[in-house]
């Protein structure tokens, strides 16, 4: 099989196209998330799929996986055959498309061999011959120069080895498929690298190149431009639900890709002028834990600070570390109270005037099976005592006040919290914490899964709280949200803050660029530095 010479950039039909997704349109309710996207994949190529959050790249992959059903008029051709829509998830795998999702779908408490066999449905009339399977898996690993013990527990493997297991498993699935018998197949990887070190990413790429050498093609969804440049043959860039460009990696520069991702449009939103906060309120020294490797900051009264970066860069741990929800180290001063992050149970953080609105709304924020009243008043219970015990009338009154203040719908305090929409759940949980009037309010992705209207209301509530003097810290990858709300934004990369944006720099495009690592003199040094230390 020959590799065809690459044609000029742009989407054109090509003899070597093994997959053509054309005129893909996809709606979630009234919102169009894919607007006539056409994407092709060639034999023996690695295609990078890039785009900012919400650009539609995950939706496109889900269309291919058969999870999303696109609008009529969309066409998917695989190995020259037009497939009925929505795609049948089982059929597409049978035809030779395998997926590796970000969280790998491995069971840590089972061995490599168990995990490898779970997706293998080929008939074994005499039961599993463990010795044979072990040799087969070792041989498959050896094909790519890997030496992973098939009997090892997946939980005991390093992160990169786990990624290897998931990828080799997907490759084995390709081999068993119809296309795999001819030595072909399509491997789709959804952001496999955020939790890997630079050296590990290199190893992973070696594996992917090895897979390409067998005749298979790879689609890799990622945020990281450097990775795309070093690995791919072509790059598809998505923006606002459209394919913004299809580029030949060889002829493309980092800057060109970056400009395509971010676009030239400048956010028209102007933040209301307000007096710059001056009075320091919260000091953070040497905060570390999880993926965050060291963070210092001074936050002022009434200031809204954003922390952001690529997924896995450590910023997302900051709110949890400040509240003592995940173990870590560092010194935190709130007002006059000194706290040690190493000995900070959430109850103590709460007592010191810190609040946390977690990102996992129904897993950490509130209880879906309890009523709005029970959720909304849980922190306020000491103020709800009357006579012989808690006054249910006072609880209902307080909840109705919260419902009115934040426009929670339906306005029914006895409904289960789980029956509300994401935005209304978030308004209830935010209202609960705001009623405590904390000194420092930490939020993780406060508007994830929240509709547009509720989002504006949450922004307004946070703005008002800041105006009353509350210090607010928001961890988010939603650059538009950060630009709309924050006085300052600190950008993380590989566990440490690398850039601080303030004033006019707090704009969607500037934040996006900083996350992706451009506009930085030391930009090219970051990976190299790590290699020196490695």
């Amino acid at each position, binding site marked *: 099989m020959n590799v065809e010479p690459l044609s000029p950039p742009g989407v054109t039909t090509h003899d070597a196209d093994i997959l053509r997704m054309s005129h893909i349109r996809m709606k979630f309710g009234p919102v169009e998330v894919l607007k006539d996207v056409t994407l092709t994949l060639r034999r023996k190529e690695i295609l990078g799929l890039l785009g900012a959050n919400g650009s539609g790249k995950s939706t496109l992959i889900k269309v291919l996986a058969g999870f999303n059903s696109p609008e009529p008029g969309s066409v998917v051709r695989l190995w020259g055959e037009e497939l009925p829509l929505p795609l049948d998830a089982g059929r597409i795998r049978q035809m030779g498309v395998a997926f590796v999702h970000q969280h790998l779908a491995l069971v840590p408490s089972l061995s490599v061999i168990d995990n490898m066999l779970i997706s293998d449905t080929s008939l074994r009339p005499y039961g599993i011959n463990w010795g044979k399977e072990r040799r087969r898996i070792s041989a498959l690993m050896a094909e790519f120069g890997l030496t992973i013990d098939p009997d090892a527990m997946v939980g005991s493997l390093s992160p990169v080895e786990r990624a290897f297991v998931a990828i080799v498993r997907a490759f084995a699935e390709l081999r068993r498929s119809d296309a795999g018998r001819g030595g072909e197949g399509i491997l789709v990887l959804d952001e496999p690298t955020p939790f890997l070190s630079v050296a590990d990413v290199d190893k992973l790429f070696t594996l992917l190149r090895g897979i390409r050498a067998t005749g298979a093609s790879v689609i890799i969804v990622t945020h990281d431009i450097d990775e795309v440049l070093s690995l791919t043959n072509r790059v598809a860039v998505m923006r606002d639900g459209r394919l913004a460009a299809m580029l030949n990696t060889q002829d493309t520069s980092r800057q060109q890709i970056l400009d395509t991702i971010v676009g030239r449009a400048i956010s028209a939103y102007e933040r209301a002028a307000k007096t710059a906060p001056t009075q320091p309120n919260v000091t953070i020294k040497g905060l570390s834990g999880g993926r965050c490797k060291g963070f210092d900051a001074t936050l002022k009264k009434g200031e809204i600070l954003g922390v952001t970066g690529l997924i896995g860069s450590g910023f997302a741990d900051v709110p949890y570390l400040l509240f003592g929800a995940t173990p870590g180290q560092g010194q935190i001063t709130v007002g006059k109270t000194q706290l040690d992050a190493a000995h900070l*149970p959430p109850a103590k953080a709460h007592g010191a005037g810190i609040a946390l609105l977690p990102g996992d709304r129904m897993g950490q924020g509130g*209880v879906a099976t309890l009523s709005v009243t029970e959720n909304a008043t849980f922190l306020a219970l000491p103020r709800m005592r009357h006579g012989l015990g*808690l006054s249910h009338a006072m609880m209902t009154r307080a909840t109705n006040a919260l419902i009115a203040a934040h426009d929670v719908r339906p306005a029914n305090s006895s409904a289960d919290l789980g029956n509300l929409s994401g935005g209304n759940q978030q308004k209830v949980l935010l209202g609960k914490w705001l009623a405590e009037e904390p000194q420092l309010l930490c939020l993780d992705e406060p508007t994830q899964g929240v509709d547009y209207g509720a989002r504006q209301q949450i922004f307004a509530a946070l703005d008002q709280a800041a105006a009353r003097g509350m210090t607010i810290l928001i961890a988010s990858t939603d650059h538009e949200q950060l630009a709309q709300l924050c006085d300052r934004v600190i950008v993380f990369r590989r566990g440490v803050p690398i850039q601080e944006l303030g004033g006019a720099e707090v704009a969607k495009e500037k934040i996006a660029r900083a996350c992706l690592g451009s506009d930085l003199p030391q930009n090219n040094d970051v990976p190299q530095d790590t290699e020196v230390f490695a």
Partner: protein
Amino acid sequence: MTAGTTNPTAAKPRRSWTKEMERFALLGAWAVLIAVFALAVPDTFLTWRTFSAMFGSQAVLVVLALAILVPLTAGDFDLSAANVLVFTAMLVAVTNVQLGLPIGLSIVLALGIGALIGAINAFFVLFFRIHSLIITLGVGTFLQGLTLWMSQSRTISGISMELVQLVVIQRLVGIPLAFYYGLALALIMWWVLEYTIAGRKLLFVGRGREVARLNGVKVDRVRAMALVTSSTLAAIAGVLYAGMTGSADPNSGSSLLLPAFAAAFLGATTLYPGRFNPLGTLLSVYFLITGITGLTMLGADAYVQSLFYGGALVVAVSLSQLVRGRQPQSFG
């Protein structure tokens, strides 16, 4: 808000009739059961003596079911409760009859040992992070062994009549005092769960441990207290058990465990549907004993007890699930 929309504070939640029906369905079923037996065997069933016997005899089960309700609300199982009951009943018998301790001291000792067993359960569950089902099963089985050893596998009778007086002989409105102990405990627990912060914390810990932790609840402390409370209440049930007959039998009490769980789960379909609740549990116990008493009077054999306990539990919980549109249950 625009002028057209109504003020949300004024909006009253619409009363849902299916929900109200669900709340009082078991109460209705109980009334129907009584009516049916009253018509079938009016002479024997519809007497004060029958009702007084039913109310008085079930106090031990009521207290035991209320005991396991506490850790159930916090998301833990206490399978050792019935063995704690037998063990403490035997402890009262041995210390009072064989060692000659005054009955008051025997009772205090039994309650103290009950609390200690709860603390042991809590230590293993929370320090080693083992599921409560495993630890309480092991501790319960261990206690059963201790009970047989302590009693030489014999029933010990002759417990001080003072205790028997206070449990079954003395009556109020014709019903043995034991009934009122169970009733009082159910009312106290209802108040604690509904009207105190401790009760609310217990509920949150059961429904969402991580949510409770991130709302500043000391989750481990709450779970430990739930297990200690459960064993202490089981010890109270043990004292009542010893007082019912003035003796302690090393075997029969442990068969109360499954009826206690049945009552707790059945209780969770009524009054406060979807929630373990003390008043619902109380109602369930008396619903079940009414059915069994009536069927026995109609000439049914002893096995009808198990048939009725098991059948009623499965049928009632299934019906309640139908009313709630077969949503997954979430007791925690």
